Every structure is written in C-alpha cells, then in structure tokens.
C-alpha cells in the first residue's frame, strides 16, 4: 500500500513505510488473506464484502457462481444460470461469521446443483437452498445451545436460458435486501424487492408506526426471522421478469443503512456497471459509500448486471 489507498483495516489514507499501516499498525500482508475485505469478480456478477470501520471482524459472508441448467458450472458469458447469496451473522451470538459462511455456501451449492430433477422450478430450488442453509447453520451447534450461531440470508437465482427474457428468483430471511436498480425512466423501474423481517418493518407493515418513528426505535434492526437453531427459516420469495435492463443488487444492512432508497443506489451502481469491469466496480463503489458514511457495520454488496430486451 502506498499513500492514497485506504488501509483495509482502518480505512485511513495514511499509507505506510513498510508492511504496516502507519495509522493503525495493521500487518497489511496478513490482512490481504482474510475476510476483512473480500472481492469476488466473476465477470457476469461480482461482490465486495468489507469489515467496515468499527467491527473487529467481518461477520457477513457472500457466495456467488454461475452454471448451466444441467448443473455444470461454466465460465464466462455462456452461463445460463447465475446465483448469489449474501448472509449477515447476528452479532449478539457466538461465532456469527461461521453461521453466515456456512449458510451462504450451502445455499449456493443447492442453487447451482443439478439435483435429481434438473429443471426443478426456480422457486422450489430457492426454497430448498434456504432450507439447506438453515440446516447448515443449525449443525454448527448442539440442539438447545444458548446463543447458537445465526444469520440472515438473501439469495438470487437468475435463469438466462432465454437471454432476452431472464427470470430472477429472490429469497430472503431477516433484513438483508435485494434491489432492482435501473436509471430514471427505465422500462423496469428501480425498487426494493424484499421486505425486511425486522421489528421496524413489521411495525410499519402492520400500520402501527410510521417509517421514521419505527427506524428511530432501538429495536428497529431486531430481526424477526433468521437462520439458526431456534430461528424461523421460512423465507420470503419473489420472482421478477424484468421488462428492461438493470442491475440486481443483494446487500447486507451495513450498506442499505447508509443508502436505503433504490434510486440512490442506482445512481451509484448503474454508471459503474456500464464501464468495462462493471460489476466489481459497482460493488466497490456501493461499499465505498457505506465506508465513507462511517462503516459502522460489515458491508456486503453483490451486483448482477441484467441484460433484458426492452419491449419496443
């Protein structure tokens, strides 16, 4: 690292004279191998997961991949199926980072697996993936353990077998989110696709509080569904067949706390996607917004550019 690049540990721009950050002393050689900042670029989709500036470790996890309907993971543009999972470990329990990692990886395996029925409907496959993730998290602790590991989940399965008419299936448990992002006046308008399983969201949905009052409450971020031994793993599921191009975003609350509305997220992500290394650029740009805002939580953003033919 030289002056001008932020330290991956403390985000300071101080630079270094050797292998140690001149501000926080972090060993920059060690840090690179760890989860403090993970960047995955698969071309067709990419993600960034960052520890943020406050938490001592990254309890978010992400898993992404692509393959064919027959379950082969194929490289490049020929992939007809894209999948991604973002999980956020619940900070009040033991080893939340293990829960999020186990959940993300097992869900992705199911989303991209061939299975006994190759053309299992996407929604069915998605629910199977969430169930597998829930089992993986539950397996981390003995039944009845207090404060057993748990996490949230948001997943996306993109079926591109008809390149002009992709189908997107999103599932979520907890307060990790999926957004559809598109420029102003797009055929498929930008919007939040998920509804948080959180105290605040449920108060608002039930008409008991307005958004501002609910979000100001200390219980705002308390989640009502999660994956874990004692959690309620029943996911919310939505399917989207976009009418035009855009960007699918999966993220943890470490991002959306700083930029909750879809138009704001689109303004950051859509221009970045249009550049050559688009997806990773967009994920990094979104993460940077949260870091600059203070990075009070772990931040994870997975970006999947979607090319759909606009109806003319």
């Amino acid at each position, binding site marked *: 690292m030289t002056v001008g690049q932020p330290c991956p540990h*403390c985000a*300071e721009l*101080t630079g270094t004279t050797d292998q*140690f*950050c*001149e*501000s*926080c*002393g*972090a*060993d920059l050689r*060690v840090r690179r191998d*760890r989860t403090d900042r993970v960047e995955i670029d698969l071309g067709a989709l990419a993600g960034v997961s960052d520890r943020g500036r406050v938490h*001592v*470790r990254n309890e978010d996890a992400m898993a992404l991949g692509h393959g064919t309907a027959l379950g082969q993971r194929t490289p490049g543009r020929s992939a007809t199926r894209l999948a991604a999972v973002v999980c956020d470990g619940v900070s009040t329990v033991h080893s939340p980072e293990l829960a999020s990692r186990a959940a993300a990886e097992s869900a992705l395996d199911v989303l991209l697996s061939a299975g006994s029925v190759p053309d299992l409907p996407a929604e069915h496959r998605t629910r199977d993936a969430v169930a597998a993730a829930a089992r993986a998290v539950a397996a981390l602790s003995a039944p009845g353990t207090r404060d057993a590991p748990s996490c949230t989940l948001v997943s996306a399965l993109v079926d591109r077998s008809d390149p002009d008419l992709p189908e997107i299936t999103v599932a979520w448990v907890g307060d990790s989110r999926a957004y559809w992002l598109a420029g102003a006046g797009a055929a498929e308008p930008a919007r939040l696709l998920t509804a948080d399983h959180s105290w605040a969201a449920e108060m608002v949905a039930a008409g008991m509080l307005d958004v501002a009052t609910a979000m100001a409450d200390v219980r705002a971020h308390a989640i009502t569904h999660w994956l874990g031994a004692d959690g309620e793993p029943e996911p919310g599921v939505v399917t989207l067949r976009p009418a035009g191009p855009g960007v699918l975003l999966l993220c943890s609350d470490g991002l959306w706390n700083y930029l909750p509305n879809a138009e704001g997220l689109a303004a950051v992500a859509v221009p970045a996607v249009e550049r050559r290394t688009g997806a990773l650029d967009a994920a990094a740009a979104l993460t940077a917004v949260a870091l600059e805002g203070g990075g009070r939580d772990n931040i994870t953003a997975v970006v999947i550019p979607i090319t759909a033919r606009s109806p003319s």
Partner: protein
Amino acid sequence: MTDTPGFTVEIDQNSYLPAGGSQVDAIVTVTMAGGPEAGAAADGAAPTPTGDGLEMIIVDCSTSMSGDKIVSARRATAAAIAELRDGVSFTVIAGTQNAELVYPPFVGTATADARTRADATARVVRLAANGATGIGAWLTFAGRIADQHPGAIKHAILLTDGQNGEHQSQFAAALDACLGKFTCDCRGVGTDWRVDELRAISSALLGTVDIVANPSDLAADFRAIMGAAMGKVLADVALRLWTPRGATVRFVKQVAPTVEDLTARRTESGTQRGDYPLGSWGAESRDYHVEVQVTPGVVGDEILAGRVSLVRAGSDNVLAQGLIRAIWTDDTALSTRISRGVAHYTGQAELAQAIQDGLAARKAGDGPTATARLGRAVALAAASGNDGTARLLERVVDVIDAPSGTVRLRAGVTAADEMTLDTRSTKTIRVRGES
C-alpha cells in the same frame, strides 16, 4: 535489525497476546559498535571530529569543602584534566552561591593541548572553599557556556559535598533550562549531600550519580568519568517511538545499566510519534523497557504495536530500527509466556523501587515497612543474581533468608552505607542470553 553501521536495535518480547489482551511489553537493546568511525558512520552526515567536544568540571567550593575534601577535589580535577583529549574545549568552574571561571582565566573555554592542560592544572589551587552552595547558579553558568558550542558533545562533571542552599523553585527552573544542553555526571563527596538532589540532576541531564564517601577516592573516580566521556562520539541521540492510533505509551524506561524513567521526557515528533532523549553515545549498549497499551484485537489479528527508531535529535534520519509486534492468539501456551528480558527487568525496576521505598521508610522511622521493602529487595537481588546490590543491602539489613526476603534491620548503619545503597539502587545487571 541493523540499518546503519554503528547502531543496532534488538527487540526482546513475547508478541503473542490472548484474545482481548492489550498490554505489549518489549525490551529494546540499543548497541553502538566501537570506534569513532562507527559514530561518524552512524551520524550519516558530517562525521563528528574527534576534538569537537566540550568538557566542564564544576567543583563545589562552599565552606564545608574545607580540609581534605577541597584538597582531594583539586587532585581529582587535575586527574580529569589529564584525561582530556587534544582539541576538546574545556573549562573549570568553581561553585559557591555563584559560579566562577577558574580556567581559562578569561571568558570562554580553552582548547586542550599539552600547554593548556598544564596551565589548567596549575590553576586548580585556586579552587578554595569559601562560600555557600547554589547548584542552580552553577548549572545556569554551564548552560551559557554550552550554548556557545552548538553541535559539540557537551558534558559536565559536577561535584558537591552538601545540600543545595537555593530555593527549590529556583533550582528546578535552572535545571529545567539546562535540559538537552549538556549531559552531567554528578558526584557527592562525603555524606552531607542529598541523594535525591543529585539524582534529580543526573536524571534530567542524562548522566550518572554516585557517592564518593572517601575523598581520597575522588581522583580515580574523576579519571574514570572523563575517560568514559572521551569515549562518547555521538551526542543528542533520541529514541523515536511510533505507536498505532488509539495506543497509549505506558512507559519508556532505561533499564540497563541503570533504571531511568524516560516516560515524561517525551517530545512529540509527528503523528503518533514521540522522541525520548538518550544523551551521548560511545561504544556501549543500553537496554530500554517499553510498555504500550494497544486497542485489543481478536484472535488472528496481527499489528505493529511500536516502531522503535534511533535518530539524532531534530533529524528524521533513522540510524537503526526495531519492531514491536502484537499477535492475538487463542493458544495460551504462546500468550502466557513472558519474555525473559521483560521478566528480568521488571524485577530489576522493582528492586530499585523497593530499596528506595525501604530506605525512605527507615528514615521516617517506619520499621515494619522498611523491613518488608528491604526484604523484598534482598529476595529480588538474590533471585536475579544482582550480587553488587545484594552486598550493599547486607550493610543495611541482616539477611536471615534471602530467597524469602526475610531480613532484620541493622542497628548502627553508617550514613555512607545507606547513601551508597540509595545511590546505586538503580544499578541493574543484564540478562545473559536466551534460556
């Protein structure tokens, strides 16, 4: 780690901490290789000319010095003059309530050669006991002379036999004004001077302090001091310590050859950096104990807890550097290990403190505390093999069982024995090799 010929910095520490641990201790060994060439190389820029030094010999000429003491002081001054290397600037100062130049017989300093050494030796008979004791005035006078020799290795020998007669605040202000101007080795002759007064001077001016109970030993002592001073080739060395953001420097102590707390001597030299003065160096080695409190990490974290650099005061040119690390682990076999050096010097610092506490309690008539603290000192001296200090302790207490620190206060302890123990309580022994 060696960066520049001349100086080396070595770090002895256990870098492993348990989860949530935050205290990092390290022993920093600074060594300068022998010879003026090494000093010149370490300087990096202009080599220090062998003659570029200033020596000031300050002799107490208060009335109490009459008799044996002033005669011995003259002889000792002559012995010190004989050690002066050609080309060194020097001066002899008589101290009473004021300070007066004895040599050269005009304003300023002389340059050492055969003729000036002979002239100066002839003038020492002018050191005559007649006046009061105003040590602050002597220091102020010496400081003014030092101001005329920028860049030189400046050193003074200060000899006194009695208590300072100045108001405490006047003395403190004078001492404060001399910080960094020259180094000063202090000697007390007889037993009517105060250890704390001379220790305050030697600590502030990065020198040594000792008792010369018998005036006839003074000449040999002065010769040794001047010999050591002539071996110094690099002045104004500083230890620069960088620590990570949010960290606190708990202390920086010299722990060998003597215990000297430098914590309060820090001057900020940049973001998260401070400089601690180490004085003048010749071919020698000294140890420092650094303790830093860092922000607690989690298992697997690895940070730089301190970067120790040697610099010339006011320069950013790093002469040598060592790294203090912190690695958090859940392996208790690693995190509970204490570095041999840290354990040893923690004990030596406690030894010095136990002696000073014990003697103070003894003076205040608090027998039980004196017995407990001096007993602890006996145990620490025995356990660490500090035989020199152990022998000095035996003149003040009867040792019943050294390992357990069981002692009895001796009756009829001489002032000389008590002051010798006090003065030399800070003397440590070095830990030898790795176990």
